[in-house]
């Protein structure tokens, strides 16, 4: 089975947003939202040693996704090839996963009222095409491929040229979008757009910590009480009960 990954070459990215546009038109992303988008970092360093680059944001299809565990219905799942997908037939639009994602790669689509995000253009992959953003990238800065295939571009960039992940000591869940470039550039992206810790929405916390134990206790106590009464009924016999009214 494949292990798909993407590499973004920061040396080549010019911040033109062609990938954003291609993605939005391919997947009919409503205006104001994006599955992928490019953001410029601020200018760091002291003249004349200035530093600036671009952050290409999208779903990282992490090895240990934070979103999946929080999805109540299992609409979000990880396919065997590592791609994190959303089953729209199951999604109810609760937004728990949107809160959870450290990279803020998810949004609630206001048209279908369900969650939407990058899925590495799975439908295009099935047709044998590359993801829309990779195909359209004007600077050829985006690469897509299989990390288990040693002949692929991404394999070489990740394992030989040292493309890095956007991970911190706090958030290390194995993102599979890698950034190739000068160490300073990757670090600049990481300091300006750090992944946040996976968050659980308030509703989910209340559900897990209060409501679920409460319901289990209520049902459990009732069940035990009933079992005790039933046991008594068995021991005592039914006829005795029926005669009681006569006394």
């Amino acid at each position: 089975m494949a292990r798909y990954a993407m590499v973004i070459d920061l040396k080549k990215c010019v911040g033109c947003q062609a990938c954003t546009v291609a993605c939005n038109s391919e997947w009919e992303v409503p205006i104001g939202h994006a599955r992928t988008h490019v953001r410029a970092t601020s200018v760091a360093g002291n003249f004349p040693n200035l530093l600036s680059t671009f952050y290409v944001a999208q779903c990282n299809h992490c090895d240990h996704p934070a979103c999946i565990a929080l999805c109540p219905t299992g609409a979000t799942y990880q396919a065997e090839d590592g791609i994190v997908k959303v089953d729209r037939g199951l999604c109810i639009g609760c937004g728990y996963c949107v809160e959870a994602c450290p990279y803020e790669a998810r949004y609630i689509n206001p048209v279908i009222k369900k969650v939407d995000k990058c899925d590495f253009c799975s439908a295009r992959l099935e047709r044998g095409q590359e993801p829309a953003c990779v195909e359209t990238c004007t600077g050829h800065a985006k690469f897509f491929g299989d990390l288990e295939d040693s002949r692929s571009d991404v394999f070489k960039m990740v394992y030989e040229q040292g493309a890095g992940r956007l991970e911190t000591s706090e958030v290390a869940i194995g993102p599979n979008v890698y950034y190739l470039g000068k160490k300073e550039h990757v670090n600049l992206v990481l300091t300006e757009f750090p992944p946040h810790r996976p968050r659980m929405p308030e509703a989910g916390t209340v559900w897990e910590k209060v409501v679920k134990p409460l319901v289990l206790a209520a049902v459990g106590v009732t069940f035990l009480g009933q079992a005790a009464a039933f046991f008594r009924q068995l021991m005592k016999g039914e006829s005795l009960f029926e005669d009681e009214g006569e006394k």
Partner: protein
Amino acid sequence: MGADSIPEVPLPLAAEQAERMSQRQIKKHHVAMMLLHWFNAVVWLAELITGTALVVSSHYRVMPYWYLHIVEGVFGTKANMLRFHITVGVTWIVVFAVYAVFGFRTYIRTKVLHGVHIHEQPLWRRALALQCILFQSEEVCLDADDLRWLKTRALRILGRSNEPLPPQGIYNAGQKLFAWLVYLAIPVIMATGLVMSYHLIATTVVAWAIVLHFLAVGFVVSGLMIHVYMGAVFPEEKPAFFSMITGMVNELYAYRHHFKWWKEVKMQEREWKQAMEEGSEKSELAESGSPPAPTDPLATAVPLPRRGLAGFLERVFRRPEYWPPYVAGVGLGLTLLATFILMGEGLGASGGFTRYLVALIAWIAPSYAVHSSYWSNYLQPGQSPLIAFLVFELIGVAVGGFVSGWLARRVRIAVDKGPRISRKTRYALALAGGLLTGYGARLARGCTSGLALSGGAVLSVGAWAFMLAVFAAGFIGAYFMRRYWL
């Protein structure tokens, strides 16, 4: 227990009195109420099975993984399961809404009977009345007796008390408490269910709707367990269980368990009797007090059917006016199994009619039939659309039906109709109903035979959803059409 002496408090009964009372039946539940009850039971079972299997996140999951796999296996995919859950839930809401509306109408009618003209009251009073019928407040209000009942009931179950239970109304305090729980929870369950199904209002609202849905269902389930236990397992309340099937309870049970209600029924009976006696005072027959001597039933009636296997076989094969429904059900099931094995497909009806129609159209207007996107599905070059199992099965059904009617000596030409309508009305209604059913069957890609029976037998989700919808729609439709039959 004569009609003259209605005691204020439940008194101990002599053995023969108790025996006599246990033979008499009192009507407790309206048939609509019983239907709603069992509809509710089926819906809750289906929704609990699928609902608990829908929560798969390790954080909120309540069922073990093997259970989730089994339920998912039945439905094929989880998305199908969710669709089923939503379909059944929405059907449930619609049926309840209809019941509430008609319940309100009935309520207004009874209030008119009692001299309170609700429809002449200001709007806010009518709204108040609506709440009354939704919550049946007169019947579910807890009073002092009820609180004592709860305490005694609990102590008695624990074996700590032998005190007699305080007298109760038509519903006992436990039932009332459960009613309150359900009245509070059901609107929450319905509203949050709709919010989640159709992703209403805002993401935050959906996020909290799941939690509230789970909480409300959880509380109802813990009450439901007691409700089911008390109704179906607990020996003292067994007549309550059967009353949900027959609508009747025996008087002894009513006396012992719902004394206040029993008293009410008795008072009404007495009033009724007095009114009857006043009306027929002049009639000498009524004066004599004793009813006319009944004719000996054995003298005129047909010989009693024999008991045991011989009698059963005789009833089925020699004098089969109608087969017992359970026998017919098993027979139908075996027939269905046989067609699956022999023909590789199940029973059906509308599909066969479609083929007859296709053959007719292809004969009259062949080019139209070939070019129609619908009819051409049934046409293959060089083969008649009539070469199909269903076509021959329908002939068999007609022949079999005739033979069965002939054996039972029921063959005659007649129009089955209600007493109030003419033959023409009946023909028109039958035609309209046939058109609707035929069109609906093709829309649903099957009828009660092909889709519900054959599909249901192979556990097709669509078939079960269809069956539930058919019964729900029938329940509603029968209400509107009752005047044509009664």
